[in-house]
C-alpha cells in the first residue's frame, strides 16, 4: 500500500488528537512531540461507545503503554496496537503513520498485523 499524504504538521495538536478521513474510514491521529515516534494513528470509532470520538480523548500512559481514553466511557485503547485495555477481544484498527518533513503520511497496516484485520 502506498503512503497517503493526509495533512501537515500544523493541522495536528501537540499532546492531543485530531480526526482524518482516509478512503472513507475515520482515523484518529495523535501527535506526541516528546515521544519517539511522535505520531500514532488508530481508528476513530469507539467500538464500545459506538461513536467516532477517539481522536477527542485524552492521551497518556497506563503502566508504560501509550493510550487514549475514550471520551465517552473512558476505556483505554493502545496507540500502538489498538487493543482495549479494559475489555479483551475489543480493539480498533491501527495505521502506519510518519512525518515527511511537515507532511503527515499514512498507510494501512498489513491486515495480518492488525487485530481487527480478520
Amino acid at each position, binding site marked *: 500500500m502506498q503512503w497517503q499524504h*493526509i*495533512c501537515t504538521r500544523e*493541522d*495536528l*495538536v*501537540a*499532546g*492531543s488528537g*485530531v*480526526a*482524518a*478521513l*482516509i478512503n472513507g474510514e*475515520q482515523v484518529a*491521529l495523535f501527535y*506526541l512531540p516528546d*515521544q519517539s515516534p511522535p505520531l500514532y494513528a488508530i481508528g476513530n*470509532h469507539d467500538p464500545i*461507545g*459506538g*461513536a*467516532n*470520538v477517539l481522536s*477527542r*480523548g*485524552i*492521551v*497518556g*500512559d*497506563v*503502566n*508504560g503503554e*501509550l*493510550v487514549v*481514553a475514550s*471520551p*465517552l466511557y*473512558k476505556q*483505554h485503547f493502545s496507540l500502538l496496537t489498538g487493543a482495549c485495555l479494559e475489555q479483551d477481544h475489543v480493539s480498533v484498527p491501527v495505521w502506519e503513520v510518519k512525518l515527511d518533513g511537515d507532511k503527515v503520511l499514512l498507510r494501512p497496516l498489513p491486515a495480518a498485523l492488525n487485530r481487527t484485520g480478520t
Partner: protein
Amino acid sequence: MTDDNTVLPTSGNLVIIGNGMVGHHLVKTLVEQGDASPWTIHVFAGENRPAYDRVHLSALFDDQTPEDLCLSPAQWYRDNRVTLHLNDEVVEIDRDHKTVITAGGVRQDYDALVLATGSYPFVPPIPGHDHENCLVYRTVDDLDAIKRCAGNAKRGVVVGGGLLGLEAANALRLLGLETHVVEFAPQLMPVQLDETGGALLRKEVEALGVHIHTGMKTELIDAGEQHTLRMNFEGQAPLETDMIVFSAGIRPQDSLGRQSSLELGERGGIVVDNQCRTSDPAIFAIGECALWNNQIFGLVAPGYTMARTVAAVLNNQAGDFTGADMSTKLKLMGVDVGSVGDAQARTAGARCYRFQDEVAGVYRKLVVSEDQKYVLGAMLVGDCDAYDTLLQYMLNGIPLPDNPASLILPAGDAAPALGADALPDGATICSCHNVSKGAINDALDGGCCSLGDIKDATKASTGCGGCAALLKSVVDAGLEARGVEVNNHLCEHFEYSRQELYHLILVGGLKSFREVRDTHGKGLGCDICKPAVASILASIHNDYILEPEHVGLQDTNDVFLANMQKDGTYSVVPRVPAGEITPEKLMTLGRVASKYDLYTKITGGQRIDLFGARLEQLPLIWEELIDAGFETGHAYGKSVRTVKSCVGSTWCRYGVQDSVGMAIFLEHRYKGLRSPHKLKFAVSGCTRECAEAQSKDIGVIATENGWNLYVCGNGGMRPRHADLFATDLSDQQLVQLVDRVLMFYVRTADRLQRTSVWLENLEGGLDYLRQVVIDDTLGIAAELEAQMEVVRERYQCEWRTTIDDPQKLKRFRSFVNAETPDQDIRFVRERGQPRPATEEERSDLIETVSV
C-alpha cells in the same frame, strides 16, 4: 379436592399489619426488589406516624425530633405506590373471606397477610397500676405522655431494671426528675449480666444520681402524701413518687392471632415455621409478635431477618429463618454494656475467664467451651472495645488463641485484636442488614471505594450502627488489599492526593502540567491526572484553558467547550444567569436552535440546552449567541454551573428579599471558577424555598433580616440536605463566607468529590468547617478570599476568546483533511425534534440509502 388453601399465590394484594421497624423493613425489602414486584402492598399502622427508629427513641430526649427518627416519610410510600393507612388499627382478620377490617371501618382483601404487630410493654397487674400517672415507654406518643407528666413531677420511678428500664430511667433523669429504678431481681439487667456485672453497672448508674432498689416486689400502688403516688413493697418500706414508668418486659402483640384463631404459644406469640408462616399458610408473622421454636426475638436484627425471609417467600424464592444471634451491645447512661452469645455460661461444661478493674469500672467475662477451643459467649461492662472481636470469634467458630485470657486482658499485654483479615468471608458484619464480609468485599470489587460507598451499596451499619467500627476495619482492610486506601494517590503518575498536589502546585508556583509532572510526577500522565491538574491550575491561575500547554489536559467537553453526547455530537448551554432571560434572547436561542436543527430542552438549572451540534457547527452557533449577548455557561466544566432562583420579593407576595437579584450577582461573581467537581447554587426569596436551595452545594434562603447560608447539599444520585451554615447574613457577609467555603473546598477536596461527600469526609465535619471559615482558626481566610479575587479578575468567556482566535478554531472541524461532516451521525425525528438514531434505525437508514 384442591389444596388451594395451602398454596400461596405469587401475586395480588399483600396486607402488612404493623408499621414498626420490622414491618417497614419488609416493605423496603420488597420495594427494593424493583418494579417487577407482583404484589400490591397495603400497610396498616396503629400509630399516627410512619415507621421510626424505636431503638433510638431516647434520642428524643437529646436534640432529635420524631422526624429525625423517621425511617421513610409518607412520601416514600406514595412514591413507591405502597398504600399506608396511618392511625387505623386492624381489629379483625376474616380468614374465610381473606379480608382485614380496621377500627375505622376500612375493609381490605388480601392474598397474603403479614402480621408485624410487634409487642406491647408488660404492665404487672399490681393494684393501682392503672393510675393516669402510670405510663409505659415504647412509642413516640408514650414519650410525649412521659414528658407531659414529668412537667408536674419531682420524682419518677421506673419499674424494671432491664435494658429498656434503664433507658427509661435515663429519660426521666434527663427530664430533671429524681429518678428511681425498682427491680424484682436481686441485680440490674438480670437477663444479660451476672451478679458481678450487675453490681458494677449499678455502681456506675448510681454515680449518676439514679437510685436503684433491687429485690423489690411491688404489691400495691395507692395515693401518696408527699407525692402523688405511693408504692408499697413486700417486706420493705414504701416509696412515694409522682409518676411510674413500667418497663418490666414485653409481650407479643398477638391479639389478632388470637381473634382469628391462629396457633399461639402457651405464653403468647403467634407460632411460625422457618418461612415465618403461621398456622394459616396465607398469613405470616414477623418480629416480636412471632414465636419461632418457642422463642420470641426482642431485638431488631432477628426481626429484619424474618422480614427478609418473608420477602423471599413472597417472591417465590427460598427463604429460611433459623433463629438468630441475640448478642447485643449498647450504652446505658454512658456505661457500655455488651452481651455475646451464652454470656451466662449456661452451656454444659462451659468455663469462664474474668477480668475486673474496680478502679476504672471495667468487667469482662469470657465464656469458652469445655475443651477451651471456642468462644461460647462474653459479658462486657464499662468497656465494649472487645465486643466485635469476641462476637466474631463466637459467630464464626474461630479457634481461640493459646492464651484465651488475653482476649479480655487490658490492651498492652493482650493478644492483638482479631483483624478483619482473620474473619472468614461468611462472617456477618452487620446483623441488622445481614451483610457478610464477603458481601462487603464483593461491593469493593464492584467499584465501591469508601466507607460511604459501602454503606450505600450494602446498607451495612445503617441499622443499629453497632458494627460501625468493625465495618470500618473490614472496609479499610479490603481497600488496603486492593491497593486503594493506603494509597490515596491521584493515579500511577502522581504519588500524592489531590489535596497534596494542590498544595505543591500552589506553593511551588507551578503553571503547567509539564512543570508539575517533571517536579512531582512521572510518566506521561493520563485521563485521571491531566484533568485534575488542569483543574487545579485553573483554580489558582485561571488561565485560558485552551492555551497550547493546557489543551491536551482537558476532557473533551472542556476542549470543545460543549458537552459531548452519546453519538459524539455536543450540546450547547449558554449562561442564563439566575434563569432570568429577555424575550429577545429567548427568541435568539429559538432561532439558533431552529437554524441548526438542535434538540431543545429546558434544564433543571433554569437554562436551555441545545443538543445535536456537530463539532464544526459549534463556533458558528457561538458566534451568533455571542452577537446576541450570550456568554458561555460552563456546563462542560467541573466548575460553577448555575444559580437557580425563585422570582423573589420583586413579584412574589411572599418573598422577603430580591432572590433573583442575589442569584444574578452570585452567578456573575463565581462563574468560571474551576473546582474538583461541578458546583450548583440556588437562592430562594423566602422560607417556602421554591428554588430548592437546600439541595445545592451553596444554598441561600432569604430571611426578614438577610440571608441564611446552606452548604454542601446535593440532589442527584445521593441526595443530601445542605447544612445550615450561618444565619441572617448581610450581602457582604454572605459573599465573604461563600468565597471562603468554595476556596477551602477547591483546595482540600478529592478529585471529583462533590461538596456533600467532601463535608462528610472532612474530619470534624460542619463544626470544623465553621471554625475554619467563620472563626478563621487556620488563619487562611484572607488568603482564600484573595485567591477567589484572582480567579474572578481573570474570568473570561472562553467562547469569546476562542471565536477571536483563528488558530483555536482550527480544532473545530470533523476532519483535518475533509470538509464533510461525520456521516455516521444520524438523527430521526421524535415529537417534532431531532434525536440520535438508534442502532436499529441507523441500519434501516443505511439500507434505505443503499437501495
